[in-house]
């Protein structure tokens, strides 16, 4: 590889080590918040794979998140599956949904792609409300502590216990972070960037751009579903608000803020936005105003986000 691979790898290990160390240092409130942020950062990383690398702006990723959320949540709630099996069910739901949506939505481009994904997500959201008998509608479902235990060789892991929960979130986060770094550096990742820069030319070079884009949609969908499934298992709540339009906009905001097409951007964006809302909510309940103004300022002045700007100006090797 032409690039120096050591510095990026060291940086990622350092980030994971820092998050591990924070487990022992943070006070209770921030400890819980960071576990949630890591799960949602996985959602943002899945979104970034499609938006950042392929340049496809989806306005419907809440459906992939909630496919994982409901896939695992319903399996536990109604079928009494174990935690690992339910997590698998969430991933499979996400993969199946993203395959179907990808096959349909990738026939469109540009603005039509955004609107189509938004509409499919809306159909998914309304279906959750319509089948309230099973999904709990807008009330949602709560998973009990007894349903969120993992038996591993005689040891019982309780996902409601803060440290276990934090470590589970960190584990998922680390796996996905390393996976996205790997994808970004692989031949597949480079084809995706080529499609973003010039799809016609990539096609002329002999790449099947549709197959590559479809693979990216499915990979993105599965990562988002993993985040959704983890959300259901770790926080025990499965509700329709998590499938609403707002949860399609939030990952876009996090990725834009942190820096699209950077591996650590989603984490930076999620942490930053969460704490901005957390701090401002001490002064005002108007958090939507903060989100709105942040979106407009970002597209106007920082279209590349925090890490994208840092990479452009100072640290060229940042992945």
């Amino acid at each position, binding site marked *: 590889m032409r690039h120096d691979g050591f510095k990026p790898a060291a940086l990622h290990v350092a980030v994971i080590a820092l998050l591990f160390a924070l487990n022992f240092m943070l006070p209770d409130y921030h400890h819980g918040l960071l576990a949630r942020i890591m799960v949602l950062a996985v959602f943002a990383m899945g979104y970034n794979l499609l938006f950042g690398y392929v340049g496809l702006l989806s306005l419907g990723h809440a459906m992939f998140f909630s496919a994982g959320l409901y896939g695992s949540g319903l399996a536990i709630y109604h079928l009494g599956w174990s935690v690992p099996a339910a997590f698998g069910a969430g991933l499979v739901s996400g993969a199946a949904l993203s395959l179907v949506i990808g096959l349909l939505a990738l026939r469109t481009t540009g*603005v039509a792609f955004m609107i189509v994904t938004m509409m499919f997500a809306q159909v998914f959201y*309304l279906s959750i409300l319509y089948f309230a008998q099973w999904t709990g509608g807008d009330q949602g479902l709560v998973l009990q502590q007894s349903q969120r235990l993992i038996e591993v060789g005689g040891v019982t892991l309780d996902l409601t216990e803060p440290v276990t929960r934090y470590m589970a979130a960190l584990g998922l986060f680390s796996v996905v972070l390393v996976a996205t770094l790997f994808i970004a550096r692989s031949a597949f990742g480079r084809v995706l960037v080529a499609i973003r820069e010039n799809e016609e030319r990539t096609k002329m070079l002999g790449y099947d751009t549709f197959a590559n884009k479809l693979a990216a949609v499915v990979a993105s969908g599965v990562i988002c579903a993993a985040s959704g499934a983890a959300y259901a298992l770790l926080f025990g709540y499965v509700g329709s608000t998590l499938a609403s339009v707002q949860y399609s906009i939030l990952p876009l905001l996090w990725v834009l803020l942190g820096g699209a097409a950077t591996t650590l951007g989603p984490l930076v964006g999620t942490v930053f936005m969460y704490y901005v809302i957390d701090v401002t909510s001490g002064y005002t309940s108007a958090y939507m105003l903060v989100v*709105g103004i942040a979106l407009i300022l970002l597209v*106007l002045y920082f279209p590349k986000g925090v890490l994208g700007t840092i990479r452009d100006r100072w640290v060229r090797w940042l992945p």
Partner: protein
Amino acid sequence: MAFGPHLLLATLEGLVTSAVLALMALGLSLVFGVMRVVNVAHGEFFMLGAVLAWAVTATLGGNPAIGFLAALVISPLIVGAVALLAEQLVLKRLNYNPEATIVATIGLLYIIQQLALTFYGPDARPVAAPFNYRISLPWFGYSGYKLSIIGASAILLIATWFVLTRTRIGLVMRATQYDSETAQAFGIPVERVYAGVFALGAMLAAVAAVLIVPISQAHYLMGLDPLLLSFIVVIIGGLGSLRGTVVAALLIGVSDGVISVFFSPTLAKIIATLVVAMVLVFRPQGLFGTARR
């Protein structure tokens, strides 16, 4: 009530929805057609129109007809001014880049919604209809005001059609829509056309809101459903096609009304949204539009 009259009632309700929807979708279609901007905040201009109508009538008090007429003039003017401001401060600086403007208008949506929640509150508030006259049909009485909405909408649509096809302003707008660079080369002030079209689109949404608010209260979240329905109408009707927009609004409004009466409204929305997504996937130029260049 027997099936026939029930169906008639559902159709009338659907026609009222269609009338309002056609106005609102026309605004969205103009903005998308001329500027290539997907205005996600269009529903919030609609909501703002309704909230301002309540504010105007509540401030004036007195005769509901006078308050309503004042709202019909003042509310769209304020909404137009807000839209103009947003256009100048944000959209213009983004060079009307389609993807950046979507993100920016999403931001605008959140800002307007939050300001409405903060200053207007979470309650739904009614506005008195300008007149109360019931037309008695053999099976049921029907609000004369609702029928007048259909009339008012038809007049406004015809006026817009006249401006677009028979006046110099319309010619300039169509030229910009067809090819903005050539238009600019011929001395058309494209940026001013864009600003005007964006304000006009928002004002159409505000007028639609003022018309509907006497029968469906003003609420800070009321913009979301009409926004999705307008998207649906614009997509089905084909972009920039006024006739397509009206036909699609009739189709969507009446079928929504009829399906909602006989089935669950959620199911109606699921079916409509899914059908439209499929139209967009398999026939992107819309059912009535022609393929783009």
